[in-house]
């Protein structure tokens, strides 16, 4: 059974039916904005993205461009478990795994590509990550580029810690922490 909602539209009065007066009223709004902006151009809310960008607050609760977190020794926290690639509904993540010969973490991503042109910014990869290795908190909104290749992120362009971020604390990866501790890095 489809529920039907009845909308009681107010019948138009004579002035509205004449139409011209309503047009003039609309144009008045436009003209007001035009002159206000002409006199005070700095008050315009429009941002000339991507040439001009607004600074998003650090506490902004939004999903922005991805980054891969880094351990103290500069290696990616990511262990190439493919959880994000599996969870991604847009099939935009592509990982190739490789093996560390000495590091007891054993596995790391030889390549980690995100095609931002395909990404739907849903944040499933962040949800799925068991190592807290991927985050969407760079406060950069992707999209304003001139070539498609500029939207292809790779391991090198994704690896980055935020200023002041502790690199080991909170790491879910026990083996990584042990390895770093053994090497005297905290």
């Amino acid at each position, binding site marked *: 059974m489809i529920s039907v909602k009845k909308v009681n539209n107010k019948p138009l009065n004579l002035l509205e039916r004449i139409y011209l007066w309503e047009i003039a009223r609309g144009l008045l709004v436009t003209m007001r904005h035009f002159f206000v902006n002409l006199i005070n151009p700095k008050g315009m809310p429009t941002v000339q993205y991507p040439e001009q960008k607004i600074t998003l607050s650090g506490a902004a609760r939004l999903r922005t461009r991805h980054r891969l977190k880094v351990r103290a020794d500069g290696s990616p926290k990511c262990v190439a*478990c493919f959880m994000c690639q*599996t969870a991604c509904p847009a099939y935009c993540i592509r990982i190739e*795994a490789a093996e560390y010969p000495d590091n*007891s973490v*054993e*596995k790391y991503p030889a390549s980690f590509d995100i095609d931002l042109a395909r990404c739907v910014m849903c944040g499933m990869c962040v949800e799925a990550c*068991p190592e807290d290795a991927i985050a969407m908190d760079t406060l950069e909104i992707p999209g304003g580029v001139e070539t498609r290749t500029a939207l292809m992120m790779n391991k090198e362009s994704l690896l980055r810690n935020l200023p002041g971020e502790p690199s080991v604390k909170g790491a879910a990866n026990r083996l990584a922490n042990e390895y770093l501790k053994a090497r005297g890095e905290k």
Partner: protein
Amino acid sequence: MPKLTIDGNTVEVAKGATLLEAAQQLGVYIPRYCYHPKLTVSGSCRMCMVEVEKSPKLVTACSTEAADGMIVRTTTDKVKAARKDVLEFLLINHPLDCPICDQAGECSLQDYYMAYSLAKSRFPQGDKARRAKRRAVGPHLVLDNERCILCTRCVRFCAEVTKTSELDVMERADHSYIDLKEGKALDNDYSLNIADLCPVGAFTSRDFRFKTRAWFLKKTSTICLGCATGCLIEAHHHENAVHRIVPRPNAETNTWLCDHGRMTYKAVRAGDRLAKGVIKNGVIDLEPALREVASRIDEAHSAAAVLGSPWLSVEDNAALSRLAGDALKTENFCFDFTAEQGIRDGILINKDPAPNTAGAMLLKAARGGLTLEEFSRRIGAGQIKVVVTEARAAAFIKDVVKASGARLIVFATNKAQIPAGAYATLPYASYFETPGTFINHQGLRRRAEPAVEAQEGVKPLWEMVNKLAVYSGTSLRLHCAEDALKGINF
């Protein structure tokens, strides 16, 4: 014949059958780690506990013989609690390695935890016992003792199936761990079965290691062409690349699969894979190569000959026979291959390394042709000047060809197969890329099914034969592989 009741259903089983087998007969699944149908019963994992009426305690289904009038319950609260507790114990020291463990996705610990436990760990992560992590224990396997649940399937496999006994449980009680016996390496011909057997990620394959995740793999049922045994296998592939081969257990031939057979897929994506023709040592495009080969065949005229191959499917051999009979119109063709058949090591590996000797003989019966001795004699006597064959079959006539200087034209999938002195080589799609029928040493007809797509331009052998015939002026009218089989009672 004892008759017993399991979860309210009555079943009659053979004498000596265990409760687990009886339940299986009824379709009741009992979780297990250490039980394997082809290995002796160990009863060490305690996962298969069931409730038997009038028995004071729960019993292990895998080691309790079914008796007449038994009333077994597998879904009571007591059984559920037992499973949950067993899992909790097994998981106490199990590391949180799933992100880096190749078993993830096909791991019994993961599966049973989701199905029977879902309990939070009461054990602090820092208190977990530590054991040796990854360690190569042979050419094909990696051992991670920390992940092991000591089900001893691997120990029993080495003791009972390969009878090499490389592995054993070292020390006692909660100190125990699986290790190689002193001075041994896990290098038997069947070692990769242990990676399949291992219900957790303790033994994993070195070859498959970190290649992809188990849940991405698509599965194609096909057959192994490593020898005349013709084991049933499953090719696991992802994004048009085969990543591993596992056995498809069946009553006729195999429960296991040998390491050699498991590595046969490597040739498909090897760097020396042929996609173009080779004339002498120079690679040239396929069409000019075909033209060149056709003109050499036409030049030799009635001195051209065709040699079938026990490495090719029945259809492709039939296409070669059509090439000889209908296009070259020559009597000089041979499908006569004899090789000693039989299991060499008492497990799986056959004395005959070719997968289709019986199939080639079937063509001999249907189409006639020369015996291999007569064929070789004619090459030696100079009656045959051009031989068209498959690369590995060229080994049968290697010496006479060299002595007589006859031109050898071979079909090959990889550069490494090309015999020395071959005049021309034409590529064809391997049997991971194209279907084909093979007859194993027992006379069983088995079908290879394509798991991946061939590289662009690489065609099945029958299609290459068809093209070759067109270039030399006759149409064989082969539109599919089965067209070649016309007139063969098969």
